[in-house]
């Protein structure tokens, strides 16, 4: 009965909230389309990382994927704009800016043959270290990790005078263990499911940045669907992806408590350090435009953020 099979891959492990919600989402579509549209998910990175997934979408082996911001930004650079360090202070700000940027994101994705379905999130990420870090100097003295292929964190750290050690996410835990890196960045939930918290004992209780992703389909495959099936996908996305966001945030909150109960130490950054970090961030931004993100999207983001902060 299946007329349209979408093969979808993601790095998120089977059984994680991301995959669980996705399965509910695809079951809904299967039901609403009378079994004509089926999603088959390859979880846990069995199809390779984001770049391999994009390549496989290009040749038609895959028809979509749950991508990380870092990975998809190799194709759609402007999408990384919300990953600028120390940009957001609350999820309300995130939601407001995301809503404002959505039309632009959708446009840009279409230009690259991708149908933007919904955004996903890892959440706010926090510096976590094997050593106590409470001020700017301590920050610099530890060996910092940055995800491979993320020009924003790379440039930001360089402006702080840090030469980060760039590793892919699967290599982080063993490198924490061996002492190759000391300070890493992750959400509370992420640090628990990836076991990073067992080594990175000290957590700076100040959101360093925001990590997110996207669920996108191949435009070619999506456009081949009859209009009512496209509608069914969008309708299901409107139901299930907000639930996923809420679930992710709930997991992060719960994880915060788990970490505190486990005895991980939460540390405050002093105001002076935060100011230095923000100044250095602004300095770094001048170097990142237009290499990492376009001036247009950066201005729009700042505009939206000011808009939200002023209306409060």
């Amino acid at each position, binding site marked *: 009965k299946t007329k349209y099979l979408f093969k979808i891959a993601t790095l998120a492990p089977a059984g994680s909230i991301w995959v669980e919600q996705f399965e509910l989402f695809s079951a809904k579509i299967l039901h609403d389309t009378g079994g004509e549209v089926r999603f088959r998910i390859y979880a846990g990175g069995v*199809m390779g990382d984001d770049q391999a997934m994009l390549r496989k979408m290009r040749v038609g082996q895959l028809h979509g994927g749950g991508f990380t911001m870092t990975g998809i930004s190799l194709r759609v650079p402007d999408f990384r704009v919300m990953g600028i360090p120390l940009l957001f202070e609350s999820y309300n700000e995130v939601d407001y800016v995301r809503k404002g940027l959505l039309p632009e994101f959708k446009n840009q994705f279409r230009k690259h043959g991708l149908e933007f379905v919904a955004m996903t999130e890892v959440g706010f990420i926090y510096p976590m270290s094997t050593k106590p870090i409470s001020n700017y100097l301590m920050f610099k003295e530890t060996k910092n990790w940055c995800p491979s292929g993320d020009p924003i964190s790379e440039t930001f750290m360089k402006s702080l005078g840090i030469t980060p050690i760039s590793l892919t996410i699967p290599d982080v835990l*063993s490198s924490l263990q*061996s002492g190759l890196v000391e300070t890493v960045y992750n959400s509370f939930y992420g640090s628990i499911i990836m076991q990073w918290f067992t080594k990175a004992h000290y957590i700076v209780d100040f959101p360093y940045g925001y990590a997110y992703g996207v669920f996108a389909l191949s435009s070619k495959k999506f456009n081949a669907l009859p209009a009512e099936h496209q509608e069914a996908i969008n309708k299901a996305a409107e139901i299930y992806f907000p639930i996923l966001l809420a679930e992710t945030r709930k997991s992060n909150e719960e994880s915060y408590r788990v970490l505190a109960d486990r005895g991980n130490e939460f540390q405050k950054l002093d105001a002076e350090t935060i100011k230095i970090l923000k100044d250095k961030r602004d300095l770094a931004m001048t170097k990142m435009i237009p290499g990492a993100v376009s001036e247009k999207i950066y201005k729009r983001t700042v505009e939206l953020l000011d808009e939200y902060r002023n209306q409060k």
Partner: protein
Amino acid sequence: MSLLKIIIFCLALLRTPLFLIISAIALVSFYTADIDISVVIIEMSRLADTPILVSLPLFIFAGVLLSESQAPKRMLHFSQIFLGWLPGGLAVISLFVCAIFTAFTGASGVTIFALGGILLPALLADGYDEKFSMGLITSSGSLGLLFPPSLPLILYGVIAGSRIDHLFLAGILPGLCMLALLAGYAIIKSGPVKKKKRRSTKKDFVEGLKEIGWELPLPFLLIGGIYGGFLVPSEAAAVTALYVLIVEVFIHRDISLSQLFPIMSKSMVLFGGILVILAASMASTNFLIDQEVPTRLFEFIQKYIDSKYSFLLLLNIFLLLVGAMLDIFSALILIVPLILPIAIGYGIDPIHLGIIFLTNLQIGYCTPPVGLNLFLASYRFEKPVTELYKSTLPFLGLLLITLVIITYVPLLSSFLISRFG
């Protein structure tokens, strides 16, 4: 198309390079499934995202260099000075030296060739009978596969995506268990000491230490580097390679500069052979995943086998057969991607599975009728293979006992990880 696949399978049995057999199957499968064949290369290019792969060529080079140098002789001489006075001393020494040597050179039969010629006459002169001596050398030709930095261990990590530092730790106790059983047997077989041996003098000790002084720190450098938090495994490989290069070429001068280029090139040819099989198998495995074969296979097997333990028993029988027919690299590359998801489904830890896998393949090296070690030994000692079957049998029995212990006592593999991981 299935006719085409049958032809390819027949060619596989006729000395056609394995990487082309696997590639051909992958190309044909993707083509018939209407998927662009460039997926084959997309999958192969994923190897560039595998950091641990870096350690393979470096350890291969270090191993080839060590086996071409006089290091095996020095190792043996040193051990004789220090342990020669023990009952069964020489046999025990042989086991340990073979194990360490195999760990560094990989199980490509080098151990039998490099050490066999020195060990056999020494064992015979020490009063061991020929049958025992040949059995010992043949079966210890792949001993040490479980110790870091053995190549098959790293290769398993690459294929299974497991952590190399954990695999290194996991192999140590099972490997020691195997060594202890074999050493115990050797001590029993040694009987009363036939010749009154001269005990080593203090001067001997100093001389011996001087001789081996440069190679002795190698295992400590490696283990200390990784678990002391100074090096990741791929860096440890680079340090090992550079260290061995300096010691064998510039300090001991066992290898002249003019010999160095051919040795380097030889190591890279060896590595190239492994890399292309690995690359091809990435592609064929991707086809299986695309078609959800591992999931379906698991569901099928689960219908008939419900307990983890009966699965492990069947797995061992299957792997012993595979081990007797395929060499360790091909077996790992072909079988691990299929078995791993099923084993995980049965709740088996991938690290433990790796140790079971390698133990099986190691035993396969000396299983009649086609174990590689048997042929190598028969070639090296100029004895008929059938004679070697008989002499290896008691050792084979002991290895099987260790296999049972390793399989059904997962703690042996996980204990060190829980302590130091």
